[in-house]
């Protein structure tokens, strides 16, 4: 009997404390609410920003969801989000759609994304053209000696198919940005679930070739200089070459707002371009815009 009374007591305390905590949440409800939706490539970055920003501005609530660039822009057109994230530029038909809905999308470049192609330091190959990388990954080239290296088999490493980096690499490198091109990864391409897996394998295997976001590549791996076309200049990926657009496997990442941003959204976007926020960009493996 006594035990039951104690249990009841504990139970009621738990209930009461739950009640008070939820009511205290209601009492200081945020003054501003930003809905942020779109590209899965950006979602981690957007989350990190939102987290840091909310820490400094407890009166602002930012909700971040993924779903893809198209989903984000569609939500902006429907007026359900304040900021849409996109890893591609808005299409002309989307702009028309928006205008007919009374929405005027305004573009903000918030970070850049570059993919570095990496090899083991014991591999003498340092330069490749985009076409050669495409042929390596599609299985046309299977030995390093065909691109000026040693007589070794090529082991292709890729991220899993659900990664945004995988899709971007497929479109820009394997298919060289051509919509009609239906080239696929060679079936014996290793699909590794994490950046770490790719880096660990390249680090110890001189046969391997891999790719990853520029910011994730450690210093002990060799980044390949890439030429857009045969005979063109070979460019090593770096923050500078990505920002002056000479490195070919790089893209801008965008946020879109309805009209010129105002109020909390403007403050948030200004903060995103600040040094503090751009440091987060670098931490997450992207390239800061300035």
């Amino acid at each position, binding site marked *: 009997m006594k035990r039951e009374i104690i249990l009841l007591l504990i139970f009621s305390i738990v209930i009461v404390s739950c009640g008070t905590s939820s009511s205290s949440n209601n009492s200081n409800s945020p003054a501003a609410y930003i809905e942020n939706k779109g590209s*899965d490539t950006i979602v981690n970055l957007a989350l990190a920003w939102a987290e840091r920003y909310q820490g400094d501005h407890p009166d602002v609530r930012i909700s971040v969801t993924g779903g893809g660039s198209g989903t984000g822009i569609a939500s902006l057109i429907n007026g359900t989000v304040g900021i849409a994230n996109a890893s591609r530029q808005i299409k002309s038909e989307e702009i028309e759609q928006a205008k007919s809905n009374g929405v005027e999308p305004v573009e903000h470049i918030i970070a850049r994304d570059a993919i570095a192609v990496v090899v083991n330091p014991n591999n003498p190959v340092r330069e490749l053209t985009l076409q050669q990388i495409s042929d390596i990954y599609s299985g046309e080239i299977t030995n390093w000696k065909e691109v000026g290296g040693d007589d070794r088999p*090529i082991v292709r490493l890729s991220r899993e198919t659900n990664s945004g980096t995988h899709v971007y690499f497929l479109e820009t490198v394997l298919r060289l940005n051509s919509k009609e091109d*239906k080239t696929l990864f060679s079936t014996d391409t290793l699909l590794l679930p994490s950046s770490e*897996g790719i880096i660990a394998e390249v680090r110890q295997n001189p046969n391997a070739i891999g790719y990853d976001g520029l910011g994730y590549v450690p210093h002990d791996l060799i980044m390949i200089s890439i030429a857009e076309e045969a005979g063109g200049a070979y460019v090593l990926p770096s923050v500078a070459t990505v920002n002056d657009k000479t490195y070919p496997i790089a893209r801008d990442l965008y946020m879109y707002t309805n009209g010129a941003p105002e109020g909390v959204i403007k403050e948030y976007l200004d903060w995103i371009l600040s040094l503090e926020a751009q440091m987060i960009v670098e931490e997450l493996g992207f390239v800061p815009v300035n």
Partner: protein
Amino acid sequence: MEKSLNWREFIITRLIKASGYSAILFVALIFFFLVREGLPTLGEVELKSLTGTRWYPIEDYFGILPLITGSLIITIGAGLIAVPFGIGTAVYISEIAPRWVREILKPLVELLGGLPSVVLGFLGILVLSPFLRVFLDLPTGLTALAGSILLGAISVPTVVSVAEDALDSVPRSYREGAWALGATRWQTIWRVTLPAARSGVLTAVMLGVGRSIGETMTVMMVTGNAPVLAVKLGSIFSPVRTMTATIAAEMGEVANGSTHYHVLFFIGMVLFLISLAVNIAASSVVFRARKRAERILS
């Protein structure tokens, strides 16, 4: 007093009964769920495409053959390692080892069984696969072989502890009888103890196989996940992609209700049916063995 005891008895037996039946209920519910989510595949993907040899779901290539062969080759490899090694260890612990060795070995093996598979995966990436690449001169160490070795290591503790319990429960009089007839220690183990413990040892093997066909994290980390059709003997030295790794890697990002989503559940169904078949085969063998034993004894 007596009345409350009866009342308690009633509740307890009902509870035990309910938990017994709930196992059946859960399996049935899981299967129902798998079928409900996986069966639409057959309407959405042509059978020819489904039995194709290319798996590239983001471009609608849904050939699941490479995944099935990948899982099978790794499971067979793991079985070839875990079964002899596990039964050998069990025989040593239960029949040969002196008491103090046995008291150290048994908990150690059980500790091995408690190792998280992700830790073994790390070992695989950082130690085993570089070693295999250099030692066997392979293009890469992330192969079916690396997966088999690690899965073997994962299922050995299961095989050992179940087989050891089975050997332990063989009455001492059997062994004494064999010795009295002049059988050597090896003859006793091979001809008397092991056959007497046969059903338990077989259960151990099946649990070990079940453990390795369902294992996900380790294989995802060390087998390279390349969806290559693994039908040659040499495939053990090349990367493969298993059904479990495919589900784990792709489920997180797939759109709910899409064709890809349904195909992933379909793979889950196939996996379920394979382990069901293994279990049925095992229990029918055990059943037959028991009937034969009963005949001999009667």
